[in-house]
């Protein structure tokens, strides 16, 4: 007889092959020099390499700006979509999610062509445009979800207690929607740190992000340094994830 726990074996193998092994390989390469000897040089090189550090700082800056823009644009959109008064059909919601069905690279290339055609100066502006365009749905959806599922009686109760619509939003609706904003941030911020395609196409390689230098190193067979950079990035992303997870748990507790 096959035990039920055996059913998980294929998934276990999958995890080993495609998640654990690559991670181990990244770690191993990061601590080796070209001839396979143990070294910390790759890590120390990053922390002493002014260019790499500057690129890293820029990546974080761009990611923060992108995330902030996504919240500023995405929150009102999600709010309008979840409001029955303004939005009567699910079609509008699908329209906002629709771009996700098309490959991000394709959209980015198309956007770049559009800017070229219009003779736009490719730079930070176009980079942010492309990023917001790519990641906005990831911000809208979780916020929309939480607003849509929110018990309408909270807003009614606030109004009943004397809050005008503005106060209802800031004192009740917004605080209760923070878990949605948190998962939106998670879904936008982390991938933007490591993105490289968007910056390459939409700035013509003028602006280099952290993802770009990793890709360059690996492309030019400098696997060890590339792996070290990846490891640093992984650790930083890991820390932000842990941090926001904690935040989310706190919020969810409050929601039940």
């Amino acid at each position: 007889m096959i035990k039920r726990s055996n059913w998980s074996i294929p998934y276990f193998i999958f995890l080993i092959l495609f998640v654990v092994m690559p991670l181990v390989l990244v770690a191993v390469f990061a601590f080796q020099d070209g001839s396979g000897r143990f070294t910390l040089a790759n890590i120390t090189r990053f922390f002493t390499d002014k260019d790499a550090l500057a690129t890293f700082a820029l990546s974080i800056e761009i990611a923060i700006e992108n995330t902030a823009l996504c919240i500023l644009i995405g929150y009102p959109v999600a709010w309008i979509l979840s409001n029955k008064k303004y939005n009567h059909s699910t079609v509008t919601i699908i329209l906002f999610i629709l771009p996700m069905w098309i490959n991000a690279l394709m959209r980015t290339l198309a956007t770049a062509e559009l800017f070229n055609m219009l003779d736009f100066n490719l730079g930070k502006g176009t980079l942010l445009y492309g990023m917001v365009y790519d990641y906005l749905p990831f911000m809208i959806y979780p916020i929309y979800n939480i607003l849509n599922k929110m018990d309408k009686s909270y807003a009614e109760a606030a109004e009943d207690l004397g809050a005008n619509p503005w106060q209802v939003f800031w004192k009740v609706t917004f605080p209760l929607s923070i878990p949605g904003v948190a998962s939106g941030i998670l879904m936008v911020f982390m991938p933007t740190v490591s993105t490289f395609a968007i910056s390459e196409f939409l700035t013509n390689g003028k602006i280099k992000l952290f993802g770009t230098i990793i890709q360059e190193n690996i492309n030019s067979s400098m696997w060890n340094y590339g792996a070290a950079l990846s490891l640093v990035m992984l650790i930083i992303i890991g820390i932000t994830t842990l941090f926001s997870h904690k935040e989310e748990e706190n919020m969810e507790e409050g929601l039940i």
Partner: protein
Amino acid sequence: MANQDVIIDIRHLSKSYGDKKVLDDINFQIRKGEFITLLGPSGCGKTTTLRIIAGFVEASDGEVLLEGSDISGIPPYKRPFNTVFQRYALFPHLDVYDNVAFGLKLRNLPEERIDQLVRRALKLVSMSDYESRDVDSLSGGQQQRVAIARALVNKPQVLLLDEPLAALDLKMRKDMQMELKEMHEKIGITFIYVTHDQEEALTLSDTIVVMNEGRIQQIGTPTEIYNEPQNEFVADFIGESNILNGTMVCDRKVNFIEHEFECVDEGFGENTPVDVVIRPEDIYIMSKLEGAQFTATVKSCTFKGVHYQMFVDTDKGYELMVQDYNAFEVGSTVGLFIKPFDIQVMRKPRTCNSFEGEIIDSTHVWILGESFECRETSLEPGTKVKVDVEFDKIDLQDHQEEGTVDGEVHFILYKGNHYHLTILTAHGDHIYVDTQDIWDKGDLVGINIAPEDLIITECND
């Protein structure tokens, strides 16, 4: 003319959602300091009425006057009312103290004043020790108390309560009922209470407004509603009752279950068909037969705690429910007696079905949104007619497709020896049916009427 005591005056209130009319010409007044209950089954419009008063729903027609002035255009946050919601709607991101202080903080009161008022409100609902607790760590009853404190702390002119006890268990509900009543007496503000629980309404209210299908059925004190129901719906909905067909022979004399009884009602005319309501506790039951008005055989006897509930078959074959402190043996013959003032006589709202229709051709008539075969008529096609059908001449089929029209069993009334059903057709018409067959509420039925049972008369206008 305006009564000084009236705080809220509801006039010709109607509300429709699309084609569906949920409120139809609601009129009533609420006096200052009154505990008024809107009572009815789910979907009767009681909650909609409350939400219109609170300002969350806009009426399609009619007005709500607060101390003589129309408040229709005023948003909820400017109305001097506060609501206790059915599922409390306590803010999960705030603790007990901040929930209660929510309304006060919006009014920018000084910190010390807020503190004082919040503590007083929490004390009123016996929740003083819970100030800094998370609201979701509280039990249902505790959440309820916080919700009441949160509403009362703002000193509303009227407190609106939307089925506030529905989520609590029976014991808790009874305790909270007493507390609410005490609170109402202590603070002296007007309470508007919505519930589907008739017992709760009878216990708490000064005035009950019984509603069904968007209309007011009766307004009165709990005793009036219980002892003198104005129609069969109220009689059936409030408490247990025997509802029977009867005939008013003359003043103070009524005939039902094929016996003649003395009663206290006058002014119905002679030989008028009426509905008679007798509460099961108002039928006197005894083992000796002399002195009894009629006899019956005990069919079943169930212990209900305080009393026994018995079903008896009368000598003329009617079934009655009787409640008494003594048990009577099943199968035994008993004598029964009803005192004149325990007999509640109601005018019948109708004595047969009456439909508006139009002649299609010499053998067909258009009623209830379908073509029905009828007896040969000489009326011209297109003539507007009134079609009457006796209650017992309507044939119900188990399968909808076997009927000319289909409908749903909407309301069932047992009348001692038959059932009186209200069928709601797919087109929204009501058909009333007398039948011996047992149907359940919500059953889907096909409706047929034999051609000879359609009594057609021409409309004059």
